[in-house]
């Protein structure tokens, strides 16, 4: 099985910040907006280097989304930055009417998604945002797995015409994808080849899936790990090709099982190739305060949970 090396823990939000700073250099139409979380979103470099293209909206996310929509009229490519909770649930109708239905080229960039936000607790730990965003017609939904991929995705979405939701996180996590990767929206990345079970993971759960695959290998189980960074549009061909080979699937995400990646995969399978599936996701619950590791353990979102789900789903074949 192919092995991956962690080149050193880094936060995905820094990948966003560094990607945005690079866009500042390479694309004069890119503008950035932030609702009083510039440091948290790692937007400081863009702000310092391109102050005329940086817009501080204050703690007013609805207004920020509206302004971003309007800025596209005349050719700008706005990137909004705030926590995932305030990027989606708080401003759903603004995104729905002024961005998605109005077909505006806005990039909604959301940090601190999911439980790994940690100690701030459930008020800030949104586990519903993938569902909210993927239900909007025309919205592209991306959840990146590490620093390098987040940086590459940030740069790639500037070239995509249309609204995008880019989801990433707070903690420092393994950085294992290549620094020079080309990020292709809607294109799954096959990380390992296997024949017994397909593990389809997104975001922080991709690294956990790789750890799980190693543990499964020690048990004589061959797992095929797919990194689905783009939840919409979903790479159905890649999923079906793998599942036809393995005959069962585990989906893994830092999100509620309702509305998340798992449901999108389930729909694809139901329509094309009905297959046993297990969900590694939160179980229709809010989070709570704790360290990221404690929370991922308590809510069953780590390598151990993926191993157990894999063993269970294989028995259902």
């Amino acid at each position, binding site marked *: 099985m192919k092995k991956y090396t962690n080149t050193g823990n880094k936060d995905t939000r820094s990948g966003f910040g560094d990607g945005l700073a690079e866009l500042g250099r390479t694309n004069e139409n890119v*503008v950035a907006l932030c609702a009083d979380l510039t440091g948290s979103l790692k937007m400081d470099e863009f702000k310092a280097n391109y102050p*005329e*293209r940086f*817009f501080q*909206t*204050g703690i*007013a996310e*609805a*207004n*920020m*989304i*509206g*302004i*971003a*929509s*309007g*800025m*596209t*009229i*005349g*050719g*700008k490519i*706005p990137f909004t930055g705030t926590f995932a909770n305030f990027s989606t649930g708080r401003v759903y*109708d*603004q995104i*729905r*009417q*002024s961005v998605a*239905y*109005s*077909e*505006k080229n806005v990039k909604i960039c959301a940090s601190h998604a999911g439980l790994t936000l940690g100690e701030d607790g459930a008020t800030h730990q949104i586990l519903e945002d993938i569902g909210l965003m993927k239900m909007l017609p025309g919205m592209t939904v991306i959840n990146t797995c590490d620093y390098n991929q987040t940086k590459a995705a940030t740069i790639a979405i500037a070239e995509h015409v249309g609204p995008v939701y880019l989801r990433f996180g707070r903690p420092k996590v393994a950085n294992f994808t290549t620094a020079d990767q080309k990020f292709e929206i809607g294109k799954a990345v096959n990380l390992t080849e296997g024949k017994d079970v397909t593990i389809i993971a997104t975001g922080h759960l991709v690294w956990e899936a790789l750890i799980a695959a190693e543990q499964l290998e020690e048990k004589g189980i061959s797992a095929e790990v797919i990194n689905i960074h783009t939840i919409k549009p979903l790479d159905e061909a890649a999923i079906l090709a793998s599942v036809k080979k393995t005959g069962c699937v585990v989906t893994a995400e830092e999100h509620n099982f309702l509305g998340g990646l798992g449901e999108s995969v389930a729909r694809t399978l139901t329509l094309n190739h009905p297959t046993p599936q297990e969900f590694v996701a939160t179980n229709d619950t809010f989070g709570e305060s704790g360290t990221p590791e404690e929370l991922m353990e308590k809510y069953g979102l780590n390598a151990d949970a993926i191993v157990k789900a894999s063993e269970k789903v294989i028995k259902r074949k």
Partner: protein
Amino acid sequence: MPNTQEAAFQINNAEMPNTQQLEDFVTQVRRDIVRQVHKVNSGHPGGSLGCAEFITALYQDVMDYNSNFNMDGIGEDLFFLSNGHISPVFYSVLARSGFFPVEELNTFRLLNSRLQGHPTTHDGLQGVRTSSGSLGQGMSVAIGAALTKKMNNDSHLIFTLHGDGELQEGQNWEAIMYAAGNKVDNIISTVDLNGQQIDGATDEVLPMGNIKAKFEAFGWDVLEVKEGNNITKIIEGLKEAKSRTGKGKPVCILLHTIMGHGVDFMMHTHKWHGVAPNDEQLKDALAQNPATLGDY
């Protein structure tokens, strides 16, 4: 006035229309409004009628725009309708200013029409730059467009229209605060002060206090047009507002209108906010507003 010769309808070609021509235009717009909502037995005639003079003033006199529509709108004035439910007046003025065929008003609110109940960019209707209808969002979008104009060194202006009841939506006050705090001085936002909303008088539904003082407290330059259904006074007010742009403050016009203006039985009441006239009422409304430019 349009800044191209592309318009399907133009008054006196390049010359500014005189007051009689503008009033004739408004009368035809009123006919278009009541005919649109009557045909499909739905829509919002009250606020549409109240703003017929204002939207006409924008598109037939004050704004410098290209009726050969381009979404980016570089080098022209832009208008954003935030209270999207008054789409009948918006559609009528857009069509009669050359953005799309006047006959298309026949499709208002019908299946497969570009003239949706509330305006949208979704179906490529020329003249519409944002979807509106869910209230309170238009000013933010307009501020974004205004900021892009500044970044593009485009000296043209952004015009907006909002209902007075719409100001109950909190997002407006985020936008009002932002625009003043960031010296967005290339925007003229007009509030249609007709004092009515669906459930009744605004003072009864949710008293909003002194709206002028509120805008001023947030840092806007505010002027009032007391006769908001007098097109001459509206144009004077809009020109005064234009003269106050570029001076570090966003500009607000408080436009005192009468909901349902021009159709006597619809005036001074909230009851025609979202109700269509029946056949007999349509006949009465049309008799009060004889055709001037020809019905579609």
